């Protein structure tokens, strides 16, 4: 019998909610407190909780390290790509106003794209740091603790 049955059941129920809350924070960042940084950390927290309860190997199956690595770069590229897009549209770097006909809508889209990049990067970096430290072979066995 698994000793952590309560933890397992509760976290199975909570992890989707945590992920959902991350996206709420992400898209609510448009109107109030929130945004990519916070959402990214919350999303990463969901993955880390999963790894803590079900083991790091299971987590690596769900969120493979290669995907994490690409996610880190992808986030920065989305951010930078938004800037490059505004360059291509003939404005200054990250001048979101040109992204739509109405400058205020352009600002809106620009911020959404940039925050999405931040979400990818922050979540991936957090998970990557956790994997990097978690995957090291401990030289103490469980009994020694």
């Amino acid at each position, binding site marked *: 019998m698994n000793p952590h049955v309560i933890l397992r059941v509760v976290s199975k129920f909570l992890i989707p909610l945590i992920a959902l809350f991350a996206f709420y924070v992400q898209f609510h960042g448009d109107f109030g407190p929130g945004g990519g940084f916070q959402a990214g950390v919350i999303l990463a927290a969901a993955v880390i909780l999963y790894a803590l309860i079900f083991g790091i190997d299971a987590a690596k199956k769900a969120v493979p390290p290669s995907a994490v690595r*690409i996610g*880190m770069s992808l986030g920065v*590229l989305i951010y*930078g790509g938004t800037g*490059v897009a505004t360059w291509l549209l003939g404005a*200054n*770097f990250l001048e*979101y106003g040109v992204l739509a006909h109405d400058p205020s809508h352009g600002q809106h889209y620009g911020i959404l794209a940039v925050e999405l990049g931040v979400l990818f990067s922050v979540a991936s970096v957090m998970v990557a740091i956790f994997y990097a430290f978690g995957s090291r072979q401990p030289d103490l066995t469980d009994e020694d603790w």
Partner: protein
Amino acid sequence: MDLLSFFPEWVMTHGAALLVVLPLLMGVVLAILPSEKLAWALAFIVALICSVLALGLVLQIFGGESLVYSMGGWDPPHGISYVVDALSAPVLLLISLMAVLCLLYAWPSVRAEVEPKKRAPFYAAFLVCMAGLLGMVVTGDAFNVFVFLEVSSISTYVLVGMGASRDRRALTASFNYLILGSIGATFFVVGLGFLFMETGTLNMADMARILRDLDGGSRVAQVAFAFIIIGLGLKLAMFPLHVWLPSAYAHSPSFVTAFLASTATKAALYLLLRFTFTIFDVNINYVGRAEMILLVGFGVAGMIFASLQAIFQTDARRTLAYSSVAQVGYMLLGIGLATAAGAAAGYLHLLNHAVIKGGLFICLGAMWYRFGITRISDFRGLSKTMPWTMGAFTISALSLIGVPFTAGFVSKVNLATAAANEGWWWAVGVIVITSILAIIYMGNILKEAYFKEPPVVNGAIVARNEAPLMMLIPMWALALASIAIGINSDLMVQAANGAAELLFPVTNALPGGVTP
């Protein structure tokens, strides 16, 4: 300037931002590349493009216009602006050119010193470091400086730590650098906080205007100044705060040492110039006094003590690292003179020293590559086993000492003249004495190489084994540049005069150059 017409107009208006964005984004792409060769090629291309861009910016500045670029279309003082002027443009060119030369050298050296799996991320970290250095020079926003300072520092810790596969002491060196570097950056950001309290703005030009209106401001501004000087002092290895530098330079991969020695401390020195002369003003009472006492005092102490320490090192890279601390002292002396000629001479030495030290460290790296040499006693007979490398090393070493017709001579003479003009004859004496100390410590190395026979291994004298071409090109390029500057220094003096003109409203601080 006819050369300027080769650059498209778009590149010239957006060049300041492109210079930072390109290496940053490509660094991120490199991080996920599997192939080391592709990573190197991309890094090299990026560095080349950056050099061309920086050249375009320098030409534009020499044409008489300075450039302000508003990030995101938000005009200063509210938005982040990138400013290219006579002070920053030459440093930008220096950083990107050194990146190109070091990357040429990196091709063989990184293969010898870094594990295969880590090579592509290594180049990624290098590009991010380069983006950080370029960013902190080009930005006109004080907090943005901190961000780029940390971007470059954090990637530097990684780069230094990568030396672990060759020398395990790289790990502790990197850790010490991380602790002290973070303290320095935190002091800097505390200073910025106080400065923001006093002025309510983060734009450098706006800060300068408000501080001038406030006549130097209250005690808050004084505290800010103190914190900023100490923070930058840690980053640029001002004498008592230099303890991280020798081991970081001695144990990191030799490519990293060459790049850091010629750019990282230089970018921090640029920031010191920027903060003490344009944001604060030498005419403000406490700034002038701090420069007299702090910068000159520590600069001179560093020149003497670091040179003495350099003499007693057994590791050649440590000798050069301590010599770097001493050379920072020369630049601080120039800045501390607080005259146009002094600042120009310090700035000139900043540019020249980057050329000299970059060359020296590349030569040392080549010697390690062929014979595994780091100790001075192992230099025996290197003039016969690696004549070309030793030739480049000798030229750069003479330049470091300050022999006539080399770059080092030009900047030392200008520095001594600037000090003499102020009546600081003791400073001239110190410059002469430390030059003699430089003869001793560089002479130790040269003596081993030229006047001793190559060692005998397995009954035979070690055969001639020259460094690969990819290493010879950058080291000779830098050695020849050093001589070229020594023979005709008009271009460098012109750059230094342009910078001094920006800091002090006078023309032709140094004789011998044509004002732009």
